[in-house]
């Protein structure tokens, strides 16, 4: 029961294999060329005193504690800033150095409160450690001199406090904000003795500043100056559990630090492959929902959705559910039942839900939330390359020279990856952004896109074809790569197609609204600027041509040879923590785990033998089909694990109609979410901190999730699924998720080498992991595409049927914001609401003026699907004619407005384009009002019987 302390080498490890040999305190030490003396000493186990140095930041050289003596050199250089040289002989601990270090510490402590015993960082303070290490016994300057002890504390940030009285001005926070996070919110004011750290300027507090609460400064602070409020309130944690964040698809590794069973803080793990010690406001701080009073801790059932909920035992809940499912299947057939797996739950849990569905329900009616996000990614990349996943690891971006961001807003939605990207951009990589909005990445501190292509929503494919047109017609194709790696027939066919005049940037301009000259320049830059890397998000997939666009990007990357090595690739920034894993685990109605079609006899036989049942060889229903089936009376029961489709899926009124028509809706979640209003059974789920398992992030990295505290409802989600299976009479008896993973690796070729033992020793593994790639696969398609030759697909542009009309003249596009996560079931139950407590409608001032709207007006947002009322915010981030909102809060009901248009190949909804009209109003829409009444009614929980 201890806190994991990762070694701090003081300065970053140089990127080199070359080593030099030197002497440190008489010991021969081999260190990487370019390493600091401090780093080399630490490699040899010698910890040179330090305060301003930490290995996540470049050397700074300010504290002067790490001074050393070097034979043959004058003076006492700082070991953090002095690189090793072959043959150098260094002394790290001489009488002179001890004297100097003690003198420096004496100065520090002469301007520091003497409150160690009552300080929140007592026993976790580097200043304290250094005072001890240097043997400081007396501060002969006294404490009456000039000091900062009366500096006022800034408690404005909801998660951490800033106490400048304890600050030693080491600048680690300022540098972390700049170098690690890339926000540059912090600075030093004044100079000399008056130097103070500030969030932006005089009289500015942290909450009002540009600070994004990533926590990098708090992590970097060596004292109690920046410290987490729970630690301030409760004292230091006494144990830590290494686990994986359950928010976005970046999949950051964290240490959950606890006192007993109380989580006090989550700190990012330097050894984490995805995040390497960085974090964002959600993962670092927004975990308080786990203890929120809204958590449901007991299973509940009811006969009618208009009845109040009745708390029951797990056994009763399982039996009630099993009886209903059995009677529905008896009456309406096996296929009247289905499931939705959760991209928020573990691989093991997802695997079990699809197993329950296929083996116990006896149907392939299983789908997942990837349906509404990255289903086109799976389809498109599998078609082009043979694998339904991104091609790179996150680290690869450090080798990119040109970064093409399409339909993604990484600084809000994938902030930890965005920080990596911004670091590379600051180093000089060029940026092209294709997005209807001027997102933060287009221009922010020390980052500016070379080209922003502000295309009209719905015109992605026209744009990608125009980029390809330039590459093909201007002779920028990497012929050698194409000849060696790609299917030549498909290439020739495609090249002829994109070379057509109709695909020229000039022709595309009519659809995209982007200047042809800019498109040409951007295409040339991507094709000729060195390593070109594409990163994309839901702005690509959530369109009627989402799959086409994914293939269009694959075409572009293949044509320019930007695949199969570091720094290049086609990379989806996947939304949910385990959406990659959910897809891998057979969550789609047509695929077993490992993307093997249900009609694949070998795969089916394998599972039939293992599971001891007969399996269907026809794909089951997708979510929209299940809802349609419910409305038409054919589909009757749905088991939803950890997804809130009533809020997240498009065309809410249709979703609600489908849900209301079910005879048995089983919702398994942490809270009574919107979908639960229509449920008959509620099974209280467990948070990521309450169970074991694995998540797979957007770079195919399988990370361990480790149980830190017991599940509040008593069962982990996999145990709930197992209980349901048992109640239905199927023998399912895993005692630990590692046994489920053993079954997965035994039956899934790309997971063949994945075991909990390997995950324990390696930290994480990127699939494919098998005999061919026993260490996993950071970069895909290095020696050839998984499908053999890369396949070029024709990507003809068809404008969506959703276009602006006289009645609905504006286009609505939706997205996310940093502080809230998706439908904010979790983040709305944390202090993150300080930054974003309602969804607003961003309207261009031009459109606002035409409609007589002012900033802050209540406006009605209406489409052919529905109407909702939001607050207007004037913003020039969009072009005129385009409005934007987030879909985080249930009150916003943004998806009442979105339509049931969807991707031709995968049914992924066209969230990103809805024709709308906006007008001033003074009340919520009729839908919102009746929904609110229904919501209050349907979420009642009956008082327990006496």
């Amino acid at each position, binding site marked *: 029961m201890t806190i994991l302390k990762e070694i701090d080498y003081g300065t970053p490890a140089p990127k080199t294999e070359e080593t030099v040999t030197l002497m440190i305190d008489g010991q021969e030490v081999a260190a990487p060329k370019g390493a600091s003396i401090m780093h080399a000493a630490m490699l040899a186990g010698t910890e040179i005193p330090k305060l301003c140095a930490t290995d996540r930041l470049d*050397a*700074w*050289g*300010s*504290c*002067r504690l790490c*001074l050393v003596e070097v034979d043959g050199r004058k*003076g*006492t250089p*700082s070991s*953090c*800033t*002095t*690189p090793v040289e072959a043959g150098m002989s260094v002394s790290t601990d001489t009488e*002179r150095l001890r*004297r*100097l270090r003690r*003198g*420096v510490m004496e*100065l*520090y402590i*002469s*301007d520091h409160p003497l409150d160690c015993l009552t300080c929140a960082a007592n026993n976790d303070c580097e200043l304290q450690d250094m005072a001890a290490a240097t043997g400081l016994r007396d501060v*002969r*300057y006294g404490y009456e*001199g*000039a000091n900062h002890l009366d500096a006022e504390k800034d408690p404005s940030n909801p998660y951490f406090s800033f106490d400048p009285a304890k600050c*030693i*001005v080491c*600048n680690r926070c300022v540098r972390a904000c700049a170098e690690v996070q890339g926000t540059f919110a912090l*600075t*030093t004011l*004044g*100079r*000399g*003795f*008056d*130097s103070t750290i500030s969030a932006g300027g005089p009289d500015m507090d942290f909450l009002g500043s540009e600070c994004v609460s990533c926590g990098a400064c708090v992590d970097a602070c060596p004292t109690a100056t920046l410290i987490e409020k729970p630690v301030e309130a409760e004292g230091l944690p006494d144990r830590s559990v290494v686990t994986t964040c359950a928010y976005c698809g970046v999949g950051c590794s964290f240490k959950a630090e606890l006192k007993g069973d109380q989580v006090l803080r989550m700190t990012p793990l330097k050894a984490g492959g995805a995040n390497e010690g960085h974090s964002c406001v959600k993962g670092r701080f927004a975990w308080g929902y786990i203890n929120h009073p809204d958590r449901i801790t007991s299973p509940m059932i009811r006969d009618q959705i208009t009845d109040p909920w009745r708390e029951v035992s797990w056994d009763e809940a399982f039996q009630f559910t099993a009886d209903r499912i059995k009677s529905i299947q008896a009456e309406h057939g096996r296929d009247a039942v289905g499931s939705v797996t959760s991209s928020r739950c573990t691989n093991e849990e997802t695997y079990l839900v699809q197993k329950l569905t296929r083996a116990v329900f006896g149907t392939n009616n299983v789908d997942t939330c990837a349906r509404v996000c990255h289903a086109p990614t799976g389809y498109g990349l599998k078609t082009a390359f043979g694998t339904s996943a991104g091609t790179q690891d996150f680290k690869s971006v450090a080798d990119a020279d040109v970064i093409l961001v399409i339909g993604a807003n990484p600084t809000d939605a994938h902030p930890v990856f965005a920080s990596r990207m911004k670091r590379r951009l600051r180093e000089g990589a060029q940026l092209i952004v294709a997005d209807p909005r001027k997102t933060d990445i287009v221009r922010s501190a020390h980052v500016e896109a070379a080209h922003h292509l502000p295309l009209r929503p719905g015109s992605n494919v026209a744009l990608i074809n125009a980029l390809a047109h330039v590459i093909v017609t201007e002779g920028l194709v990497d012929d050698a790569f194409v000849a060696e790696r790609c299917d030549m027939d498909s290439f020739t066919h495609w090249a002829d197609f994109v070379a057509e005049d109709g695909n020229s940037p000039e022709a595309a301009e009519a659809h995209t609204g982007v200047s042809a000259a800019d498109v040409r320049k951007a295409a040339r830059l991507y094709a000729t600027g060195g390593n070109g890397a594409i990163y994309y998000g839901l702005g690509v997939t959530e369109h009627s041509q989402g799959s086409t666009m994914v293939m269009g990007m694959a075409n572009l990357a293949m044509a320019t040879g930007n695949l199969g090595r570091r720094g290049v690739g086609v990379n989806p920034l996947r939304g949910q923590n385990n959406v990659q894993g959910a897809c891998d685990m057979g969550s789609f109605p047509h695929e077993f785990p490992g993307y093997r079609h249900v009609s694949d006899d070998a795969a089916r036989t394998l599972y039939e033998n293992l599971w001891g049942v007969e399996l269907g060889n026809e794909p089951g229903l997708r979510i929209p089909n299940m809802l349609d089936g419910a409305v038409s009376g054919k589909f009757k029961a749905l088991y939803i694990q950890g997804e809130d489709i009533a809020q997240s899926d498009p065309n809410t009124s249709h979703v609600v109609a489908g849900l209301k028509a079910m005879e048995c809706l089983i919702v398994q979640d942490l809270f009574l979410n919107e979908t639960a209003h229509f449920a008959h059974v509620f099974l209280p789920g467990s948070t990521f901190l309450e169970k074991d398992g694995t998540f797979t992030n957007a770079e195919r990295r399988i990370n361990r999730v480790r149980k830190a505290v017991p599940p509040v409802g008593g069962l982990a989600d996999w145990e709930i699924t197992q209980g349901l299976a048992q109640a239905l009479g199927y023998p399912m008896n895993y005692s630990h998720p590692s046994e489920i993973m053993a079954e997965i690796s035994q039956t899934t070729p790309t997971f063949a080498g994945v075991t909990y033992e390997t995950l324990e020793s390696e930290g994480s593994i990127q699939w494919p992991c098998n005999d061919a790639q026993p260490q996993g696969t950071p970069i895909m398609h290095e020696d050839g595409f998984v499908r053999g030759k890369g396949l070029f697909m024709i990507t003809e542009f068809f404008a969506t049927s959703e276009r602006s009309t006289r009645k609905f003249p504006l286009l609505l596009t939706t997205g996310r914001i940093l502080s809230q996560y998706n439908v904010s079931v979790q983040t709305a139950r944390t202090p993150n609401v300080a930054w974003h407590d309602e969804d607003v409608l961003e309207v261009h001032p031009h459109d606002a003026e035409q409609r007589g709207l002012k900033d802050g007006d209540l406006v009605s947002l209406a489409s052919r699907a529905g109407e909702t009322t939001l607050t207007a915010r004037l913003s020039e981030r969009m072009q005129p004619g385009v409005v934007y909102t987030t879909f985080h809060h249930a009150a916003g009901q943004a998806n009442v407005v979105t339509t049931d248009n969807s991707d031709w190949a995968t049914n992924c909804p066209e969230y990103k384009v809805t024709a709308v009209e906006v007008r001033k109003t003074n009340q919520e829409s009729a839908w919102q009002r009746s929904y609110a009444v229904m919501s209050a009614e349907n979420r009642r929980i009956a008082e327990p019987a006496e």
Partner: protein
Amino acid sequence: MTTVLIAKDSGAKSVGADAVAAAFEAAGLDVIRTGSRGLYWLEPMAEIDGVVYGPLTPEDASGVLESGAKRIGPLADIPEFAMQNRMLFKRVGAMDPTDVEAYRASGGEAGLNAALAISPDDVIQAIADSGLRGRGGAGFPTGIKWRTVADTPDQQKYIVCNADEGDSGTFADRMLMEGDPYLLLEGLAIAGYAVGASKGFIYLRSEYPDAAETLANAIANAPFLDADLAGGFRFSIELRMGAGAYICGEETALLESLEGKRGLSRAKPPLPAHAGAFGQPTVVNNVLTLAAAPIILAEGAEAHQAMGTGRSRGTMPFQLAGNIKQGGLVEAPFGITLRQLVEDFGGGTRSGRPVRAVQVGGPLGAYFPESLLDTPMDYEAFAAAGGMLGHGGVVVFDDTVDLAAQARFAFAFCAHESCGKCTPCRIGAQRGVETVDKITSGENVDANFTVLDDLLEVMRDGSLCALGGLTPTPVESALKWFKQDFDKGASQ
């Protein structure tokens, strides 16, 4: 029409040169505004046909010349001028600094032309052979610095001129920039040619608005800038202004500031020669160092090498200030003694009282007692005596000076000007002030002397840059030569 030279130098203007010039113009004379000859005790001064008049008032415009009341005599006969060896400053005061034709007519561009006629390597060799050392204070051999930058492979290199002249009692850079700006620009271009840099920056302190105007004009009009020179060499110069921080005269803090960041010292390595401005190989040289290059190239390395003493070659423009009768600029070969400067050129103290201490090399230089006045102005001789030449500033104090107060001032200056990056300087300077106060007020004197000694070691050996590292120098010299000044409080 009679032509009269009146300085437009800001030192001369500060004592009324503009009004004098206006009066002379009104009186119908043809006034040419020049740099200052550096005989500041004669300013506002007029020079007509080589004859000097001063100090003048506007009323002197009518009749004074005829009356001879303010006539000093021919410039060449003024001993304080005649004894000088004006190399760098030969044009300063003699011509209109904005007149590029006058510059060319007086030998301007000869150095650049000579440089362009030989290889960059040979230019560096000439600089090395001349024995030129950095005039900013550190005295680093310029040839070696240029060679290092030349040998560091990179597409883009820079020349940065350190014109952030902040040492108390120094003004030679300003006088040169105000009086002969093209010489400096030519020096930058030669450095650029030698090391392969296409761009130069002049980082000028914000307190020099006149120099800024003169330089901006010269940069706009210099025919050799932004022009195709021999071998396709092109060079441009950008003037960037400081923001009022002494620390930005320290080369690494200067580079930070030049890049638009807070002026904080950087750790070395990397040396600016390897990774300087914007991370590129950069020559950072003082104004006077760069201004010497055209002269060395035009007149040959031997001529420069022939002057001076020991390893200090050429001339140095010393600046006399403080409590001195005849303040101003004295350009003389290294090796002249401090006493010669103070007594022969400066004429002793302005108060007429005995000299008690002389601080050479700016606020971080040592205070020398009378007994060290015969020290030759030479880098090594000064170092041996516990001092430093620095930028050649000489500040004189008479026998009323309190060296304990001066030691306190050294700490206070450091505390005020510290960038705040490293701990010894950021906190140490403040504690130094407090500790000197304790000593002079008689509080635990012996114990506090020990604290002071320990602090001086921490600052000298522990500081990141020369500001904190050299602050002990004036304090230690005060303690060494004038310890009795610290004991006043104890004896009270």
